[in-house]
């Protein structure tokens, strides 16, 4: 999601996203330890703190490259560096081991059409959907959202409309990071853990989701994420859980072979 947002606006692949996701889980855990079991407090803190970290990443490792006119793929390298740095920092602060999450929601269960659903699942799912729909709506109708799309489609023309391009890009990083971090918090709540290494696979999967769904399409990234989840769960259940990653990457390869621009993507134009 956040991944695709940043890509769509800047045509750069932001690899720090995975680490920001992980930091979301840890900052959430720490806040929960400080203020007690308030999901909302943790959510707000995570969004604010990691939104700010996202801005720092943009200012420190992305903008200098952009201002020097470096090719966008270099940002892939520099954000990967930032990602590794953030993960190492997390290991220093929280240790490299898995940390358990407290129980945040009442342990209640419902049976819907024969499947059991827990309250936690309902809340995390609704929250995730809410965030996704909210982001999508904002990008579609919000003023800043429109500016983002304008910058994405034609940066110079957007500047001529009076869009402060740097501000929009900073904002994109802030929102993208806040979304990613919220994802980390939700994952921590849902699976009950946080670990510095947890971001790596997520970063990679976010990248895949964005590719599978179609680069630069927020809806596509959502769809891609859903397909990844399904592939893993079904591949795991029907073939082997040991090979779920192998299956996932095979599907990625297949999609790229059949539709290089992703399922909802249109071909990426080189901008003049």
């Amino acid at each position, binding site marked *: 999601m956040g991944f695709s947002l940043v890509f769509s606006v800047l045509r750069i692949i932001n690899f720090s996203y995975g680490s920001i996701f992980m930091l979301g889980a840890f900052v959430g855990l720490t806040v929960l330890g400080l203020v007690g079991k308030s999901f909302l407090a943790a959510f707000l803190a995570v969004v604010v703190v990691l939104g700010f970290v996202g801005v720092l990443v943009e200012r420190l490792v992305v903008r200098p490259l952009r201002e020097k006119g470096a090719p966008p793929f270099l940002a892939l390298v520099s954000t990967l560096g930032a990602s590794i740095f953030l993960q190492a920092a997390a290991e220093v602060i929280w240790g490299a081991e898995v940390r358990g999450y407290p129980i945040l929601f009442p342990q209640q269960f419902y049976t819907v059409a024969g499947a059991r659903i827990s309250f936690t699942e309902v809340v995390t799912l609704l929250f995730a959907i809410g965030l996704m729909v909210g982001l999508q709506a904002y990008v579609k109708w919000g003023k800043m959202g*429109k500016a983002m799309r*304008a910058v994405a*489609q*034609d940066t*110079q023309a957007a*500047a*001529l*409309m*009076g*869009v402060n391009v740097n501000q929009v890009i900073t904002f994109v990083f802030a929102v993208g990071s806040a979304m990613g971090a919220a994802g980390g918090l939700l994952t921590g709540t849902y699976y009950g853990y946080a670990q510095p290494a947890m971001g790596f696979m997520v970063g990679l999967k976010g990248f895949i989701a964005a590719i599978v769904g179609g680069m630069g399409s927020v809806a596509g990234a959502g769809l891609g994420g859903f397909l990844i989840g399904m592939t893993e769960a079904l591949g795991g259940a029907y073939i082997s859980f040991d090979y779920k990653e192998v299956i996932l990457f095979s599907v990625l390869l297949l999609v790229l072979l059949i539709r290089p621009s992703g399922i909802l993507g249109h071909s990426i134009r080189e901008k003049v």
Partner: protein
Amino acid sequence: MLDIRDLHVGYGSIKAVEGISLKVAAGEIVVLLGSNGAGKSTTLKTVSGLLTPSRGEIWFQDERIDGLPPHRVTGRHIIHCPEGRRVFPEMTVTENLEMGAYVERRRSVVKERMALVFDLFPRLKERASQPAGTMSGGEQQMLALGRALMGGPRLLLLDEPSLGLAPALVESIFASIGDISTADKTMGILLAEQNAAEALEIGDRGYVMETGRLTISGTAEELRRDETVQRAYLGAAVAG
């Protein structure tokens, strides 16, 4: 209102504009003639802040504006309608027009301006919810002009609005530009063109630019009668 003084602009070591000075007053249409690579676009981009000059000054309404970032220049209602239209292809016509009024906070003003634009280009109204990228070149140029008008320009910078359009369309676009100018006598227009015949038709004054320098200047009438201009631009235009 616009006063360019001894402007020099380059791309790295390439010098594109080498010491030009020109003025645009409120209510006039000033034509900047020049063939490919003369430096017209570079000049306009420098005024709108996309490029920073290496030397010289740009003044707008007694304020120095060179070196300001583009969004600050746009904030002063200097609206640059770029070469090649540059509409936002995945946005609808309405969204494109809304982007044109990005700095305008008052919704009522945005509405008024959009109504004016739709009056000027009824075609855009028909296509209001169509993605801009799927429209024809002429429609896109109308949209680009309309979008520029949405910013409530005091100074309008038009870069080759006739580029790539069929002659009939060219005529109607220039007619619209003339209308825009007549409608608002406080607005200045700087029009960069290769199509000298049509441009000088609506223009009040003009300059001829060659490899980064201004070689000839005068009223539209004087330029039309100038031999060099006739040979280099009008002749070519007629023959073409």
